[in-house]
């Protein structure tokens, strides 16, 4: 079970959700470009930043819900899966299902 290098599941899910949120990311990058020359300090891209991260968050929590639903499904199947998934919210581990 011991991983030499632990992968933070949230970061992994955020990265895998990137393709789904290309549009707000492009909007944010366009905004960054727009305000690049600004020296007044008044311009910022909080709106586009929030839109992008909201999209990522929604996708991540949905992935977790789907993974959790899968776990419930397998639990009711009485299926002793050899999967060893640790998504941070739950752990699918053979010993857990051996009750």
């Amino acid at each position, binding site marked *: 079970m011991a991983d030499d290098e632990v992968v933070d599941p949230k970061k992994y899910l955020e990265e895998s959700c990137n393709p789904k949120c290309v549009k707000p990311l492009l909007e*944010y990058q366009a905004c960054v470009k727009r305000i690049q020359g600004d020296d007044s300090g008044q311009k910022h891209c909080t709106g586009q930043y929030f839109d992008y991260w909201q999209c990522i968050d929604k996708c991540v929590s949905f992935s977790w819900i789907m993974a959790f639903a899968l776990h419930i499904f397998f639990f009711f199947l009485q299926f002793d899966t050899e999967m060893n998934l640790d998504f941070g919210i739950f752990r699918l581990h053979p010993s857990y299902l051996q009750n």
Partner: protein
Amino acid sequence: MVGGGFIQQILRRKLHSQSLATPVRSWLSSTKANVDAGSSGVRAFALLGAGVTGLLSFSTVASADEAEHGLACPDYPWPHDGILSSYDHASIRRGHQVYQQVCASCHSMSLISYRDLVGVAYTEEEAKAMAAEIEVVDGPNDEGEMFTRPGKLSDRLPQPYANESAARFANGGAYPPDLSLITKARHNGQNYVFALLTGYRDPPAGISIREGLHYNPYFPGGAIAMPKMLNDEAVEYEDGVPATEAQMGKDVVSFLSWAAEPEMEERKLMGFKWIFLLSLALLQAAYYRRLKWSVLKSRKLVLDVVN
């Protein structure tokens, strides 16, 4: 928005003081009242303009509110969410370990005693051993002096600072809140705390945070005094679970949820039982009411006109 409304009020008052309720038809057709009509026409236009500026200023205020309210946190599927779901007690145990090693240096949990942990996360012996590790100041002895003794189960969890002023002084003016009720004290508390702890990111372009604060989009305003505390492998779990940032976040929020609502499991059991029983009682009551009223509801009235 406030300015627009104020201007509207002033103009309305001036309009009333002049000619009260000039009918529109006469305003259009009259020639003698042209001077008055012209000025009231200008006033009407000014009113409309004030209204529009009011609306526009409202919209700009709304966009500035985005950072003010913080980024909305998503809803995560907590294992204790369901109508009959209990806490993940292994997670509570790990979460207490995270709290002790990462958070307790700044955050107090002054409403939790060591005895509360017995049967929830630790055995009595383990809790006693944990309590004995701390030093507690106890009441005056026979000589009238305060003395220190090792902790007991009845003692509260230790506080990092003597009082709020000391806490603020040690943290640049910011007070690390007591965490005993934090998941109930914040809107959507469980999801908010998890999102906050795992959501430290680079600020958006154009936003600069002053020295001493850190950017966190979920924190109202965006600038939080607490630095990022959860890093991979910061804690070594007793049960060997890999301590990723998300795992530690989940465990500590489970612990904080339990701390704020220790009665949750009993409450859910009681709720399920009583809602079920009262539903049966409702059916019985409905039947009984209809039974008693059937006499009246099934009567027939004959209207007989006597000739």
